[in-house]
C-alpha cells in the first residue's frame, strides 16, 4: 500500500469551532492540518452576527486569540431591545439584562472579515507544529480502514490519515452524516435564517442609533409581520453596516409556504425600520443559513472513533428564547475537543479523546445549555397543537388581553428572565400570538413612512459572487415530483414561486397527453444553506473546494 500523508490531527473547517480546536491543538504541540473548502477562509461562512463570550464558559474566543475583538469584530452590543409588532403598533421591551446574563462581552461580527483574520492566526500556529491551513480543499468523507475511522478523504488531495479528526464543517457537515451522527430529515429540528448586510453612509450608524464609541445595539422583532410563520427578525449594528435578518422554524416556513426573502422584505419595509433606514437603502449582500436547534439536535455524544464534531456540525446552536448563541459554543467545544485529545494522547490512549470530549462538554455545562432539562419538561405538554390553540384562544380573548394589560411593564421583566427564556415552547404562541397581543394592547403606532425598496430576488442573486463548477452540480434532485421536493420552491431562500432564476422551479410537463407537476433544479444560484437537503429529496453535497458561492460579508 502506498504511504499516505499523515498528521496527528486534521481539523475540517476553519470557522470559529475549527479555529479554536486548531489553535488549542497547536499550542499543545499537536501536529495539526486545517482544511477549509472556501477559496478564502470566511467565504463560505454566514451567521446572524452576534458572538458571545460567556462568563461561565471555560473558553471564549479572545482567550484563544487575544487581539480578536479589536481586529476581527464589529461593534459590541451594549443595548438590546425586543420589539413586539402588530400592524404599525409597536411595544418595545429592553432586554439588555437578559442579554447581559452570563455575558462577559458580546460583539457583532461579519464572518468573512472575522474568519479570514482567525485563519491567519491559525495558519501561523499550526505551521509551527508541522501542519498548516489549506484553503480550497473540500473534505468529502471519512477515510476508513477495517471499518475504523482513520482520516479523511478530499476532492482535491489524496486521503489523509490522522489520529484525531475534528469535524467543524458546519451545519451541513458531511462528516457528521458520513459517520451517521446527524441527519437532514426533520424540518422541526432546524431554523432557517436569511440576512441582508446593509450599507450605511459614513457616520449614519452612530447618528441614527445615537451611539458613541464602543457602543452598539441589537434589536429583535416579533409579531404579526411574518405571515404567521414562527420566528422573528433581528438587527445588529456593525462598524459601518447593519446586519438585518429573519430566523424561522423551518417546519413553519414550509407549512405556511412562505418565501423567506419576502419575510425579510416585510421586516425591511416595516415602518419601525424607517428610524434607521432611508430611501437610499443599499444591500451589500443577501445570505442564508440553516441553523440547528440544539434543544432537539445537539448530539449528546458527538464523536465516533477518532472523529469529534464541534459547533454547528454537532448541532451546538442554542436558541435561548429570543437570543441565539452558536459561535461561542463552537469555540468552547473546539477547545474542549482539543483538550481532550491532548490529554488522551499524554496517556498514550488517543482513541479515548472522543469519550473525554463528551465528558468535558457535560462537566463544563455546555450540554446543559444546549439541551436544557427545563425545556424538555415543558415541551411534552406545551408543543401539542390543542394546547397551543387553547393558549392562543385565551391570550386573544378579552380575559387574556386583560391579563396582558394588567401585567404591563412586568411583561418586560418576564421576557428578561433567562430561566423563562430557556423553556419557551416552539409554538406560535410566544412567537406570534403573544407579541401581537402585547403590541395591540400596549403598543403605540409608528408614524414614520418607510421608503425602503429592497432588491428583488434576481438582483440579490445577481450581486452574489459565484465560481460555478460547470457540469458538476453539487446537489442532485432524487425525486422531482412536487409531492417529494416541491417544498423547496418556496422554502429555498434563492427560489420562489413563478421565479425562473432560482434553484428550484415548479414546472408542468406534458407527455403523451398526460400532465405532471414537477420540480427542476439549477444549482448555480445556490447559497449552500442546506434547506433543500431537509425539505426536498436530494443528494446533497458541498461544491468542490473554492467552487460555488463566495460571501464577501458573511
Amino acid at each position: 500500500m502506498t504511504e499516505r500523508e499523515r498528521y496527528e490531527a486534521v481539523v475540517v473547517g476553519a470557522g470559529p469551532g475549527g479555529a479554536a480546536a486548531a489553535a488549542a491543538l497547536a499550542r499543545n504541540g499537536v501536529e495539526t492540518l486545517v482544511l477549509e473548502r472556501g477559496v478564502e477562509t470566511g467565504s463560505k461562512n454566514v451567521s446572524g452576527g452576534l458572538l458571545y463570550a460567556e462568563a461561565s464558559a471555560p473558553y471564549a474566543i479572545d482567550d484563544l486569540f487575544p487581539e480578536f475583538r479589536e481586529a476581527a469584530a464589529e461593534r459590541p452590543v451594549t443595548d438590546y431591545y425586543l420589539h413586539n409588532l402588530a400592524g404599525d403598533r409597536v411595544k418595545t421591551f429592553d432586554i439588555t439584562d437578559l442579554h447581559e446574563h452570563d455575558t462577559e462581552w458580546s460583539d457583532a461580527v461579519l464572518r468573512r472579515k472575522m474568519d479570514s483574520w482567525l485563519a491567519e492566526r491559525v495558519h501561523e500556529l499550526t505551521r509551527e507544529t508541522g501542519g498548516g491551513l489549506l484553503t480550497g480543499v473540500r473534505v468529502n468523507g471519512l477515510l476508513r480502514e477495517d471499518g475504523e475511522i482513520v482520516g479523511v478523504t478530499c476532492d482535491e488531495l489524496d486521503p489523509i490519515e490522522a489520529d484525531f479528526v475534528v469535524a467543524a464543517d458546519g451545519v451541513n457537515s458531511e462528516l457528521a452524516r458520513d459517520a451517521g451522527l446527524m441527519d437532514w430529515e426533520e424540518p422541526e429540528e432546524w431554523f432557517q435564517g436569511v440576512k441582508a448586510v446593509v450599507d450605511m453612509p459614513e457616520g449614519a450608524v452612530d447618528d441614527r442609533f445615537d451611539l458613541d464609541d464602543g457602543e452598539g445595539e441589537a434589536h429583535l422583532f416579533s409579531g404579526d409581520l411574518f405571515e404567521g410563520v414562527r420566528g422573528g427578525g433581528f438587527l445588529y449594528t456593525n462598524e459601518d453596516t447593519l446586519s438585518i435578518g429573519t430566523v424561522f422554524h423551518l417546519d413553519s416556513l414550509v407549512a405556511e409556504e412562505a418565501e423567506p426573502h419576502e419575510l425579510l422584505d416585510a421586516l425591511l419595509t416595516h415602518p419601525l425600520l424607517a428610524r434607521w433606514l432611508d430611501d437610499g437603502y443599499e444591500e451589500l449582500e443577501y445570505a442564508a443559513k440553516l441553523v440547528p436547534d440544539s434543544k432537539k439536535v445537539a448530539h449528546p455524544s458527538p464523536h465516533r472513533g477518532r472523529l469529534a464534531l464541534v459547533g454547528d456540525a454537532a448541532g451546538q446552536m442554542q436558541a435561548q428564547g429570543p437570543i441565539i448563541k452558536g459561535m461561542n459554543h463552537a469555540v468552547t467545544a473546539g477547545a474542549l475537543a482539543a483538550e481532550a485529545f491532548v490529554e488522551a494522547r499524554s496517556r498514550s490512549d488517543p482513541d479515548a479523546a472522543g469519550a473525554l470530549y463528551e465528558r468535558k462538554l457535560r462537566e463544563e455545562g455546555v450540554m446543559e445549555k444546549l439541551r436544557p432539562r427545563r425545556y424538555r419538561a415543558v415541551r411534552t405538554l406545551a408543543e401539542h397543537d390543542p394546547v397551543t390553540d387553547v393558549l392562543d384562544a385565551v391570550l386573544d380573548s378579552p380575559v387574556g388581553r386583560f391579563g396582558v394589560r394588567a401585567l404591563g411593564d412586568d411583561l418586560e421583566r418576564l421576557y428578561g428572565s433567562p430561566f423563562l427564556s430557556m423553556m419557551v415552547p416552539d409554538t406560535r404562541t410566544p412567537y406570534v400570538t403573544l407579541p401581537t397581543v402585547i403590541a395591540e394592547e400596549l403598543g403605540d403606532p409608528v408614524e414614520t413612512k418607510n421608503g425602503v425598496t429592497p432588491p428583488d430576488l434576481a438582483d440579490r442573486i445577481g450581486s452574489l459572487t459565484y465560481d460555478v463548477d460547470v457540469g458538476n452540480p453539487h446537489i442532485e434532485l432524487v425525486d422531482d415530483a412536487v409531492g417529494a421536493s416541491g417544498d423547496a420552491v418556496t422554502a429555498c431562500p434563492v427560489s420562489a414561486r413563478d421565479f425562473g432564476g432560482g434553484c428550484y422551479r415548479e414546472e408542468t410537463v406534458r407527455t403523451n397527453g398526460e400532465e405532471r407537476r414537477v420540480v427542476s433544479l439549477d444549482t448555480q444560484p445556490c447559497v449552500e444553506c442546506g434547506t433543500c437537503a431537509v425539505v426536498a429529496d436530494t443528494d446533497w453535497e458541498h461544491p468542490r473546494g473554492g467552487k460555488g458561492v463566495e460571501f464577501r460579508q458573511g
Partner: protein
Amino acid sequence: MADAPMDPGEYAIQELGPEIRSIEDVDALRAILEAEEAGENRAGAKTIIESRIEKFTEDEESTGEIDPSEMTAAEVGNALQDVDDPEELERIRAAEEEGKNRDSVLTLVDNRLDSVRGSDAEAAEVVPPEEKHPDLDHPTADKRHVRALEEGTYADMWVYCETQAGDLIDVSLEMLGKARELMDDYNETYDADEKVVAVLVGDGVATHAETCIEHGADVVVHHEDPRLDRFRHEPYTRVFCDMARWGGDPGAGNPDPAAWRDYDEPRYVLFPATPNGRDLSAQVQAELDSGLASDCSGLYIENAVISNPAKTGGEDREFERVLHMKRPDFSGFEYSTILCLDNPSREFHPQGASVIPGSFEVPDPEPEREGEVVEHEFELDEEWFRVEVEAFDRLEGGVDLTGHEVIVALGRGIGDDPTRGMELGLELVDAFEDAALGISRGIVTSSYEFEGHVEEYAAEERQIGETGQEVEPDLYVAAGISGAIQHKVGMDESDTIVAVNTDPEADVRDFSDYFIEGDLFEVLPRLVEALEAGKLDAAAVADGGETG
C-alpha cells in the same frame, strides 16, 4: 623574561585560578610558572598556570600561518576551514608539495580552493560520466543524442501556433499576445530588437499567417505538406527543430544564411499545453538538448541572481534575460517558478515552456500590423511517416454561437409549450440569413420534455450567459428571457437587443433597445411574417408591436 606580576606562593591553589584569570600575557604567565617552580612547586598550581599559558599560546598559533609539515592531514583540514584567501591556500599547497607531499593534504587544499573560488568555467573540466565513473554500468552510453550548442547565439521568442482541423486554436493567439507583450518589454529593457516568431506546421496552414501577424507576430514561419494534415509526432518534431536551427547541423549551430535571422537557435519557445502541444514540446526541447517547463500559467522575463552548486558553484551570479515560467503545483495550491539556466559547461537554450490554454487573454487583433512570412523548405523523409493513422474520430466540438449576425435566444417563457416555443425560435432563425439559436440557463436546467426533433436545441452547448457562451451579434432577440445578470453578461455587448416578454417589469427591458410586451407564442410568428415580407429592419418590426 618578564617579571612575574604576582607571587603565586602567596595564594592557595584554589585562589590562584581566579587571580591569574586577568593575565593574558604569555611571558608574564611563564614568569609566574617559574616563580612557582622556584618556590612551592605545587603540582596543582603548575597545572593551572600551564593550562592558562597553553590557552593563549594556541590563540597565537591559530592566527599565524599554517605549516602543513607539522600537522596531520586532519589538522590541516580543520585549519583550512578558516582560510579563504586563495593565495594563502596556494602557499600552503606549495609548502606541502615541497614537504611531505601527501595526496590527502593536497586534495584537502584543492577542495578548499574550489569552494573559495567557486567553480569558474575555466576551472571546471567536464568529464563525460562514462569516463568519470568507468566502474558503473552506463546503459545509455550507446545512445546518440544531439548535444547543446557551445557558445551559441540566441534571439527571438518563438510561438508554436497549433491548428486543429485546419483552424487556429485560441491558445495560439493567447500565446502570441503574451509573447508580444513580453518582447516589447524585453526590447525596451535590454535595448534590443528581437522578434516574435509564429510557427505554423500542417496542411494549408499558411492562410493563418495574417491572423498571427495581427495578433502580435513579427515573422511567421510555415511549413506545409499534405502529409502533415494531422499532428504526427516525428515529422512535426523534425520540422520544428530544423526551423529552429534553420538548416544548421544538430549541435553545431551553423544555420543557413537568412535575412530575417542571425542566430543559431531561438532564445525562447512557447508551446500550447494541449495534448499535441505537450507531445511536441517535450520532443523538440529534448532534441535541442534544452529543458522544458510544462503547463505554465504565468511568464515574465527578468534578470535573476542565483546561487546554485551546479549552475554557479554556490556563488551568487546574475543571469540575464531569464524567462520565468510559473506553473501551478498540487492542483494549484502552490506555484513554482521554473528557470532554465545555462550551466558553466552547458547551454540550456531555447528556454522553453508549454502554456495552459486560457492563461492569457486573446489580444485584440491589429489589422494594420505588418510582418514577414517565411516559407520553410525541408525534405520530409517518408520513413518519418511509417506510423499509419488508420482511423480517427473528432469529438463533438459543441455548438459555436459566436460569429453570427443574429442570435435568437429563448428563455423560460416557452414553458407553457416548450416544443412549440422551440419550433417558433427555429423558424425565426431560418428567417434570417445568418442566425443561430441560443437558450437561457433556465431552459438547460429545466425539466421540460421536448419532442425529439427539437430536443438537441435544449442542450447546455447552446447556453448563453456567464457559464455558457458570450455572444455579441448585430441583433439579439431575447424571447421569454427575464434578463438575470448571469444571462446579461453573455449578450449585452450585442449591437441591437430586442426583447419579447409578457412581463413589462422584466429586467431585460433595462438593457434592451426594443421591448415588445407580449407573449412570444404570438409575437415570434409575427416577426417571422414581417421578415418574410421583406421588412428586415428590426426597428420596423418593433414599431409594429406594442413597444416600450
